[in-house]
């Protein structure tokens, strides 16, 4: 790396934001009486060590899936905040399909994945229709639609579909064989491969196709894109169906992996949607960057648990860290640069 490109990388808002996040996290650690080096060391060894790597890849599957789901519309400047609802509907649909399908187990798995994807896509399209035909901003319609979906899935898991005799709010376990194959004895399943394939497809579309170019152009300057003939409503509809489909797929993968059933809250409680959005924002929705950012945050999330065990600092610190990174990035702060330069006249 030449000297100028090194300086350039250091001064990029991205590097600054991540470093600033880590420094502020360190201040918090010092504030609670922990040694930042021990704590961060525990995060890294806890997430990437032999005991943690499986967990990191499992969490990474969900985080990356939702990061992609949110990156696809974000590339065109659209923000889908309804990931929770779309994911949960995908999960409960996959569970119902898996429990009731008359097909042999391997085909049932495929059917459940497709059904979950379709459910998420269909629900996300609803939000797109709200924006296109009712003028309700996507940001708001997708988020508000998410709450009833989460409530509905919760109701289904607690009452009509509840496992008889169980005290937990969960559906019955899927039949034998209705599960995504796992790698060895780990909890990492074929779902990781599916999500990585989706990332590769996104990279290809973004870089190599006219559609990808239209999406990026809309994100950079939507008026110019419209002038150049990009049909915005259709694009919104298509992007949201892909976005919701990916979120639904993540829900289906969650149900078809351990514990092989829909458990109320297990998909939404870890906050995959928000972590995924944070990753997509950090990467500016660029395909490769989104993959890297998603795994960075998966490491933080899983490593946070190890940090909590070693230093007794609550794992919620990693959530603070994520948000701080995005605050800095959104304000477009960078190394000395802007703060010390004379501001242009208003």
């Amino acid at each position, binding site marked *: 790396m030449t000297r100028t490109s090194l300086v350039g990388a250091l001064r990029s808002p991205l590097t600054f934001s991540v470093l600033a996040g880590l420094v502020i996290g360190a201040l*918090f650690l010092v504030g*609670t009486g922990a040694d930042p080096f021990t704590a961060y060391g525990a995060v890294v060894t806890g997430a990437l060590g032999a005991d943690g790597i499986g967990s990191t890849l499992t969490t990474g599957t969900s985080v990356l899936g939702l990061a992609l789901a949110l990156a696809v519309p974000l590339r065109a*400047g*659209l*923000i889908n*905040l309804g990931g929770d609802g779309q994911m949960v509907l995908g999960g409960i649909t996959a569970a119902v399909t898996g429990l009731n399908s008359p097909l042999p187990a391997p085909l049932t798995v495929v059917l459940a994945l497709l059904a979950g994807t379709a459910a998420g896509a269909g629900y996300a399209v609803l939000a797109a229709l*709200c924006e296109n035909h*009712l*003028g*309700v*901003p996507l*940001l*708001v*319609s997708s*988020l*508000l*639609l998410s*709450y*009833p979906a989460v*409530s*509905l899935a*919760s*109701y289904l898991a*607690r*009452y009509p579909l509840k496992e008889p005799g169980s005290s937990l709010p969960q559906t019955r376990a899927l039949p034998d064989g209705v599960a995504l194959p796992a790698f060895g004895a780990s909890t990492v399943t074929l779902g990781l491969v599916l999500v990585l394939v989706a990332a590769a497809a996104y990279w290809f579309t973004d870089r190599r196709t006219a559609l990808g170019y239209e999406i990026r152009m809309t994100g950079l300057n*939507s*008026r110019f894109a419209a002038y150049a003939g990009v049909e915005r409503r259709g694009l919104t509809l298509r992007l949201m169906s892909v976005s919701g489909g990916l979120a639904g797929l993540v829900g289906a993968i969650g149900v078809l992996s351990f514990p092989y059933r829909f458990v109320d809250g297990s998909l939404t409680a870890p906050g995959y949607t*928000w972590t995924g*959005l*944070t990753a997509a*924002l950090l990467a500016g929705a660029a395909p490769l960057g989104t993959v890297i950012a998603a795994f960075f945050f998966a490491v933080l999330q899983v490593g946070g648990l190890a940090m909590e065990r070693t230093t007794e600092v*609550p794992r*919620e*610190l*990693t*959530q*603070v*860290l*994520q*948000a*701080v990174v*995005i*605050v800095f*990035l*959104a*304000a*477009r*702060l960078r190394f000395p640069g*802007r703060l010390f330069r004379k501001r242009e006249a*208003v």
Partner: protein
Amino acid sequence: MLLDSDLVMSALRALTPILLAALGGALCERAGVFNIGLEGMMLLGCFTSVATSWFTGSPWLGVLAAALAAAAYSLILAVGAVTLKGDAVVLGIAMNLLAVGLTSFLLRTVFGVQGTFDDPSLQGLPLIGGFSPLAYLSWAAVAVAALLLSRHVWGLRLRGVGEAPDAAATLGVRPATYQYAVILLSGVLCGLAGAQLALGNVTLFTENMTAGRGWIAVVAVMLGRAAPLGVLLAALLFGLAEAAGFRLQGLGLPQQATDAAPYVVTLGALFLTTARRRRLPRPSGARP
């Protein structure tokens, strides 16, 4: 009987936090700042009010601390969006996330508990005539904001900043000053909203206890077209939905149905109003 005076009373209680937050959001909207950080500022207000009330024994100091803390927090939006010209939408989302993490983190480091902090000796706000003092304050704030925007020169300039910032700047009005003022004011109002939620409606703190109310406030700003009286009506709609939900739960409807009710009603109202006038005013900070 579903609709009676009890229901109206509980609706009026439920609407107070939404109304306070939405008033702040409406003022920001008028000055051309799309503020979707209401949820986070409110949540920070919830925690600060509970922590302060617990340590000092005075809910009033809790209210004051909540207002100050949320105002300080709102500086992130002011500096980021107004001075550094960052993206207000992304900043707002990040502020909401940060507040969830920060309050959960502090809940565990300060009180050593996870989930909920609930203690019999925690002092809540007193009720006067069935309402907390903050409820009366919120109604007064509607009147003050309405008069300010329609009659006072400050309000007229504020609207000028939002509608034509360049023209306002030409006339010697500094847009940034007005935008900082309304963002800080929205912080104060959201802090009060949080205090009302945590010390008025109940007397406890739960992780993520705002549960989307800040977002409902954002919708109330749109529904009410950023006018104080319109915002009041929109917040009343939400209050009725929440109160009716609780009532129906008492009649045996599952909790999940009533949890979803306010969001469904809010969405329904959005559909109805936009079906009538076709398009909502687009939030100023949102992408075209």
